[in-house]
Every structure is written in structure tokens, then in C-alpha cells.
């Protein structure tokens, strides 16, 4: 036994490495979770840098690797990165809208060892209201669906649900079934980034959510054994915070396109925290030693009402980014919680939605010009 061996760190390894390869995207989704200032972070890591990140992550113990964006298919080195991730022993996942996928690329990704594709179903046009009637969207997903089946991947879909499509949830489920999906995640919008900017347009009424959940339950029963349906709880309406990312710096490690290492997609907006870049530090130093990753680990950082709350281990106080967005304090209880002293903020915006108040500001599409405008000064 070597008594001089360093003590094992008390923090567990990152099990999930999410490589956000790019912020470039052919879509302009109004609920996009990429930061609103993405146009200020355009210096993407190169192929060799990503390969090093993949190796370091695997050495730390990461087993799941997700490639996302933006649209990861716009990177023409995606196949090279997938191949290396596969060789290293990761289970490889691609999160894509399918825009840019061709039968040739699908075959190349399969040959590189890609294990899984999650296809997000969103409108490929700017006409949000045409979401369902737009035949181009359906035809694209149908083509992509056929490419996935041809390569032996299951068809797993993700649809972001919001006020502009929630009335059509039955049709969305039916459409996914027609496309041959085996699993669909109905993801109620989470209000960060672009979705936070557009919140007044996206937040459904309490009544709409109830109906949507009832319709989902009916379809779940009807499609039992054919398609699994998962309905992500809408935390604004439920008064119950989520255990965000399964705990800050607990299992998830996100690398932004420019190399910033983050505990989640949106943490970079939190003031007073610094997140090192993989260009400057090793993943090991970042995960175990950086202030950014250690700040909200565990429960030591909590304030009341979280400190004395019986649920503190269960939800870890909810989401730090949401606490900052709604209470201007990243260490506060997540205001979606009924016990939060700031819960009235959430109740107020839900009440506005329920009352059918027409938003004063127009919808802001996720694009470069809007990103520069929103992050100016």
C-alpha cells in the first residue's frame, strides 16, 4: 500500500460529457437554450482540441458523450470526433434537428460508431404558426426518419412544447407515431436564454397544460407498447423545483463551442463565477478544482429556506440559473418553489399567461443579428 498516494477526491467523476460543437445553426428557434450572446463566442475549438477534450473526459470516467450545438452537423469533422469518442469507449449520442443529414453522412456516422440519435422536431421555417401545417418540416423529418431506420438507429424525438404548439399536442404525438418514432419527449419549455426573452409568447396557460397532459395520457394508453411518451414537468406551473442537471458539477460537464467548461448550457451568464476554458486548463483541474464547478456543489452554499428544508437533498434547491434570472441571486431558492420568498414573481407571470395578456414585445428569433443586439453594451 502506498501511503503517500493522494486521497481520492470526494467529488465523483463527470459521467456525461456534452460537446456543444458549434453555435451555428440553420434554424432560428425562439426557445433555443444557447446563450443569447452566442454571437460573441464564435471562436470554435478545432478538431484537435475537441479530440483532446474527448480523451481527457474519458480518462476522468465520462461514459456518455453527447454531440450537440447549434446544429452539430454543420461541423464537417463530426464523423472524426464520433469515431474517436467511440474508440475511447463512450456511448455516443447526436442531438440534431436533422437539417443537413444525408444518407451518405448517416452511413458515415454509423461507420464511425455513432450509437444514438435524438432528433429534435422543430419548425425549420420562421413561420412559427405554420409549425404543424408546414409540409416541408414533415417531409424533412420523414426523410431523416428513413435514414435513421436504414442505419438501425431507433427513432427518438424531442419536441419543445409552448403556447404556440401546445393546442396541437395530440397531432404532434400522432405525427411522431406516423414517422415511426419509438420514443418521444414532450419537453415543456424551460425559460432560459432565448426562451426567457420570449417567455410571454411561450408560456402556456394552466388550463392548456392540464389539457395537454390529459391528451398525452390518452395517447400513451393508445400507443402502449408501440411508442413511449415522456412529458417533462413544467416547473413554473407546478411549484416544484427540478434537481437541475442532477446536481451542479455532479455528473454533467458541458463544453461550449469556444471551449468554456460549464456545469450546464446556461451557467456562463451567472455573474461572479468564472469557468475556465479547456484551452487553458485540463478537464481534471476544471472539474475538481475550479471555483465555477465547486461553488454550488452539494448543499453547503444554501440559504434559507433551503437550508432547513426537508427536500433539500431531493431537489438541491432547484436551478441556479433560474434563481439568478428570477431572484437576481444565484444562491437563492429556485423561485418556482412554493417555499421561495420570490415565488410571487413566478405566480405573476403565470397569472398573466392565464389571463391571456397579449405580450407587448414582438417575438425575438434566435439569429446572429439579434444576438449581437441583445448583448450590446
Amino acid at each position, binding site marked *: 500500500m502506498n501511503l503517500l498516494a493522494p486521497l481520492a477526491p470526494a467529488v465523483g*467523476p463527470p*459521467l456525461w460529457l456534452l460537446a456543444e460543437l458549434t453555435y451555428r445553426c440553420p434554424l432560428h428557434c425562439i426557445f433555443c437554450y444557447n446563450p443569447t450572446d452566442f454571437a460573441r463566442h464564435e471562436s470554435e475549438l478545432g478538431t484537435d482540441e475537441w479530440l483532446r477534450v474527448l480523451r481527457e473526459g474519458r480518462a*476522468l*470516467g465520462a*461514459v*456518455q458523450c*453527447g454531440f450537440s450545438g447549434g446544429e452539430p452537423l454543420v461541423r464537417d469533422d463530426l464523423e472524426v470526433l464520433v469515431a474517436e469518442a467511440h474508440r475511447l*469507449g463512450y*456511448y455516443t*449520442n447526436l442531438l440534431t434537428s436533422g437539417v443537413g443529414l444525408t444518407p451518405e453522412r448517416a452511413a458515415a456516422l454509423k461507420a464511425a460508431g455513432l*450509437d*444514438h440519435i*435524438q432528433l429534435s422536431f422543430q419548425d425549420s421555417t420562421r413561420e412559427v404558426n405554420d409549425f404543424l401545417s408546414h409540409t416541408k418540416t414533415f417531409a424533412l423529418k420523414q426523410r431523416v426518419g428513413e435514414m435513421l431506420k436504414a442505419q438501425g438507429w*431507433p427513432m*427518438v424525438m424531442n419536441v419543445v412544447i409552448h403556447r404556440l404548439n401546445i393546442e396541437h399536442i395530440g397531432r404532434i404525438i400522432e405525427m411522431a407515431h406516423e414517422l415511426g418514432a419509438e420514443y418521444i419527449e414532450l419537453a415543456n419549455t424551460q425559460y432560459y436564454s432565448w426562451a426567457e426573452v420570449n417567455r410571454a409568447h411561450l408560456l402556456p396557460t394552466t388550463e392548456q397544460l392540464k389539457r395537454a397532459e390529459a391528451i398525452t395520457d390518452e395517447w400513451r394508453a393508445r400507443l402502449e407498447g408501440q411508442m413511449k411518451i415522456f412529458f417533462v414537468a413544467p416547473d413554473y406551473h407546478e411549484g416544484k423545483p427540478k434537481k437541475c442537471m442532477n446536481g451542479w458539477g455532479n455528473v454533467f460537464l458541458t463544453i461550449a463551442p469556444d471551449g468554456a467548461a460549464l456545469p450546464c448550457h446556461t451557467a456562463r451568464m451567472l455573474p461572479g463565477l468564472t469557468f475556465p476554458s479547456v484551452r487553458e486548463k485540463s478537464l481534471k483541474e476544471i472539474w475538481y478544482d475550479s471555483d465555477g464547478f465547486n461553488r454550488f456543489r452539494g448543499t453547503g452554499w444554501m440559504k434559507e429556506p433551503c437550508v432547513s428544508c426537508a427536500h433539500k437533498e431531493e431537489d438541491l434547491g432547484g436551478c441556479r440559473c433560474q434563481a439568478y434570472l428570477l431572484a437576481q441571486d444565484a444562491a437563492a431558492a429556485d423561485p418556482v418553489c412554493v417555499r421561495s420568498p420570490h415565488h410571487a414573481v413566478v405566480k405573476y407571470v403565470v397569472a398573466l399567461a392565464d389571463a391571456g395578456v397579449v405580450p407587448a414585445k414582438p417575438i425575438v428569433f434566435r439569429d446572429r443579428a439579434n444576438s449581437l443586439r441583445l448583448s450590446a453594451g
Partner: protein
Amino acid sequence: MNLIDASVPRLGHGFRLQWEEVQGCHVLLYPEGMVKLNQSAGEILLRCDGQRGLADIVAQLETAFGASGLRPEVEKFLEIATHKRWVTLA
């Protein structure tokens, strides 16, 4: 579910079994998820290769661990594993 001597279990489509040095255990990986396996679950799944029948698997485990009477435990695990789609039977 009817498990007979000749039942041939194999890992379900999309699942992958591997040893993880950092975690010190076998894990079962699937789309966007992971199950940590205890030693007996890992040892059973290692033998679910679509080649060996249930009787062979039990015999091999009993030899490997110098034990006897493992069949009920293996069957119980395979029932759970089949239900969770970790394993399919041929």
C-alpha cells in the same frame, strides 16, 4: 415469462456492457443513460452473448464462483433484465 434451459439471452438492441475502471464496476450503457451493475449482475450479463443458453450460463457461473444452486438467482435477474429490455431472449 418462460425461461427454459435452451433460452438464449442477449443484450437488448442499443445496450452496451463495459467495465469502467473509474467506477470499479460493470456498467450498462444505453441512449443517454447508464446503469451501474453489482458484481453478480455484471457477471450474468457478461455471459448473455446470444450464444449461450440459460443452463450453460448457470453452469459457467457456478464453476467460476465455486458455487451451486445459482439458477433461481440467475432466473430472477433475467426476468427483471428482460422486463427492463436490457436483455432479450431467443
